[in-house]
């Protein structure tokens, strides 16, 4: 169960602007972190229409990477059973 949960891209990072979302995706690609841009689910309120979905393992590395960049992240959500819970960044 733990392995399959780790593999699930059930964390969603949202941004203030599309440019930030795209920059974040690029950083992930350059660091070989598996991350995918997708439209923000309607149940989440976000400034920018794109969100980055990642799994738990990638999220740890991503947080560290974001701390060393000037990319502004808006919020972080955890998704389970089609419900989104906002987490502390």
């Amino acid at each position: 169960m733990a392995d399959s949960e780790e593999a699930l891209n059930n964390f969603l990072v949202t941004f203030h602007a599309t440019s930030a979302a795209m920059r974040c995706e690029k950083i992930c690609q350059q660091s070989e972190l598996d991350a995918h841009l997708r439209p923000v689910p309607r149940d989440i309120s976000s400034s920018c229409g794109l969100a980055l979905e990642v799994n738990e393992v990638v999220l740890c590395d991503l947080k560290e990477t974001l701390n060393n960049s000037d990319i502004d992240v808006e919020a972080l959500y955890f998704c389970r059973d089609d419900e989104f819970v906002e987490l502390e960044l």
Partner: protein
Amino acid sequence: MAFIYLDNAATSHPRPRPVVEAVSRYLNELGASPGRSGHRPSLESGRLVLETRELAADFFCASSVDNVIFTANVTGALNIALKGYLRPGDHVLTTPFEHNAVLRPLHRLQEERNIEIDYLPVDSFGSIEREDFEHLLRENTSLVVINHASNVTGAVLDILPLSEWCGEYNLPLMVDAAQSAGSFDFPWEKLDAQFLCFTGHKGLMGPPGTGGMIIDPEMVERTKSFIEGGTGSKSDQLTQPQVLPDKYEAGTMNTAGIAGLNAAFKYLADKGLERIIEKKKRLTESLCRGLEDIPGIELLGPGPGERRTSTVSITWSEGDTAELSVKLDREYDIMTRSGLHCAPLAHKELGTYPRGALRFSTGHFNTEDEIDRTLAAIKEILG
């Protein structure tokens, strides 16, 4: 049509093949609007725009990618910057060598917002004296806006000292880099400018309809947006987002053009900007020396061997340079530009108002043979 194109100060021609192919590839294969939909072609368009922003940020040594704002052209960037930044009653310092892209917005702001304008004396070689600068400063001076290189004479402004003086007085500096970017070797990392406005389709050899502004983040709060509209962000709100770059990029951008600009930056890096500039310098030098030797022809601005862009303007003591331009076009297939070059005050300073001058501007794809043929044509016309 085979002709000798010497009007690169207006727009570069031809453009590098990769630029043309990149525009075509975007229109044929990708086509989607960046930053709007979440589907894969839209995301790929967004990645293309981001990469181009990064290339521009690298070229101009911007502190952050998000400080690169894309506009339709340098005129658009200057309008955003001037009309967004200046407040009623502000005092602005500029020069007589500005293009109408600066002069006309300033003129309108003078009428509508009572801004006051003073013109820094600049000699035709691009030098400004510190004493003149300090003499014109007032308590309400809020901005210095400067043409980096004259589109009439090719003279390059000695801008680094001026940017230091502006720093000492905590005065924002706005630079019109329309004629300088990609035209001569310049250490952008040393320039402390709060607004750097550039065009994509002249020295950078990108497509028309591209350009932008590198804005200092400290200027963003004060500089109001010019156009409000869709940005793909904060869509639930009726106010324009204040985050960069969205604040100044409402509406669908010229993604096809940006694809071409992307290829242009890569072309310059691949071929070596220094080599490109060196070739233009050689061609311009040949043209200058040749023109100087023709009786009745007078060069404006810097002479051969002096610092300049690849723009050279001349007057003709025996006749109308507009007629010369027409003959060069119709009888010799040589393209030049006569008139006031959208820089009326520059011509007043040079003593060539209202008749104007004839401008030649070499580009990366011109050849020595074309320069020789141009000089021969002029001699033939002048008899």
